[in-house]
């Protein structure tokens, strides 16, 4: 193409000149966006509301965020660097994710802004179709990159929050409770895999030490199934607790699990078991030397 005679030096076909003209076009574009900031920002906020995006936020909040996004957007267009925008997108996501804002809403508002700005460019350059085309050629790749940056930032932040919550749930799913001095209860609910069994044991052993526990009741009423691996882990947990000086009582073995354990031949001879959690706590209190009496037997008669 460059050898096509008179067009050879045209700004559109010479890569060097084209880059320069792209920069010049972007400068012109940025100036336009700055000049019409108030009006374009309002138009954008209006369209966000009309499209029923960000419904979890008030109109004032939408307007405030729209202003920040707009300014960051223009800045990214101007400088061609995305770090500031990226940081802002992450920060924005952190604030709006807990309020239930969805991925499609974030992508939606950025695309709306792209459209609002594109329309304003149509309005400004509609008489010079050639110029409009060149402006759009400069604008579109940058706008797409911005939309991409914001969307990716949002999704990454969402994933980070999900990972954090999973961690918290895992911690929560093995709560070691102190019901009275020297007595711990560990109710296990759900599915136990080797990793969780391991974590659970480590947590329990640490709790025995910090709470100076003498008796631990492990309640497995909420455990649906148990294979030989998990059963052996349970036996190990009981043995390790004893090495620290604590007695373990296991409660809530379902008939199915009891049958499984006997069938696969897990050695439970060393394990104290009691039918249900209440019975387990009573047994634990007996071991600790407590005696639970109804109040009228304790209160001296008047």
């Amino acid at each position, binding site marked *: 193409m460059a050898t096509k005679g008179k067009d050879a030096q045209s700004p559109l076909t010479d890569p060097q000149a084209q880059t320069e003209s792209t920069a010049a076009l972007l400068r012109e574009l940025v100036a336009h966006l700055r000049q019409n900031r108030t009006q374009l920002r309002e138009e954008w906020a209006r369209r966000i509301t009309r499209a029923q995006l960000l419904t979890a936020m008030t109109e004032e909040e939408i307007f405030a965020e729209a202003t920040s996004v707009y300014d960051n957007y223009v800045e990214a267009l101007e400088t061609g660097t995305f770090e500031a925008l990226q940081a802002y997108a992450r920060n924005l996501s952190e604030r709006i994710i807990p309020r239930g804002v969805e991925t499609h809403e974030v992508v939606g508002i950025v695309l709306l802004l792209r459209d609002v700005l594109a329309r304003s460019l149509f309005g400004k350059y509609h008489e010079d179709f050639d110029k409009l085309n060149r402006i759009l050629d400069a604008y579109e790749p940058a706008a797409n990159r911005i939309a991409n940056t914001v969307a990716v930032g949002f999704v990454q932040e969402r994933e980070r929050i999900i990972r954090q919550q999973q961690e918290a749930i895992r911690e929560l799913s093995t709560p070691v409770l102190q019901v009275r001095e020297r007595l711990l209860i560990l109710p296990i609910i759900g599915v136990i895999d080797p990793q969780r069994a391991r974590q659970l044991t*480590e947590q329990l052993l640490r709790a025995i030490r910090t709470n100076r526990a003498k008796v631990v009741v492990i309640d497995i009423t909420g455990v649906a199934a148990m294979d030989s691996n998990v059963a052996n882990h349970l036996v190990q947990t009981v043995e390790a607790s004893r090495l620290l000086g604590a007695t373990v009582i296991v409660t809530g073995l379902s008939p199915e699990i009891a049958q499984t354990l006997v069938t696969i031949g897990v050695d439970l001879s060393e394990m104290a078991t009691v039918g249900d959690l209440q019975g387990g706590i009573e047994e634990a209190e007996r071991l600790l030397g407590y005696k639970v009496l109804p109040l009228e037997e304790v209160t001296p008669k008047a």
Partner: protein
Amino acid sequence: MEVPILKQGHYLIASIQSALTDADLSHLREALIERVGRFRARGVIVDVTALDVMDSFAVRTLRDIAHMARLRGAETVIVGIQPEVAFAMVQLGLTLKGVSTALDLEEGLAFLNMQTQVRIERGGPGRIDRG
């Protein structure tokens, strides 16, 4: 590394201060058993709080101490096993079966007091197994 053995009333307390070699452990076993006889001890406490690992030799030595002391009329309690150490022990298959354990020195003393009390009440030496 010599393990200091303190005599306190009817009890002997061996508190391990640092990592021990197999020879150190064997020496501890001999010293304790000799002293159980010499001081007519009723109880032995081995404090292993300072041990950051216990392998089969250490566990076997502790078990031997408990069994030999019992034959000579003293009850043994191992105190201060760390959570990580306990977990590694059970994975190795080392559970100190038939040997009493307690959280720390204070608990160990309370346990021995209770055990000797029971023995005196029952009138004579008895075997009390835990776990």
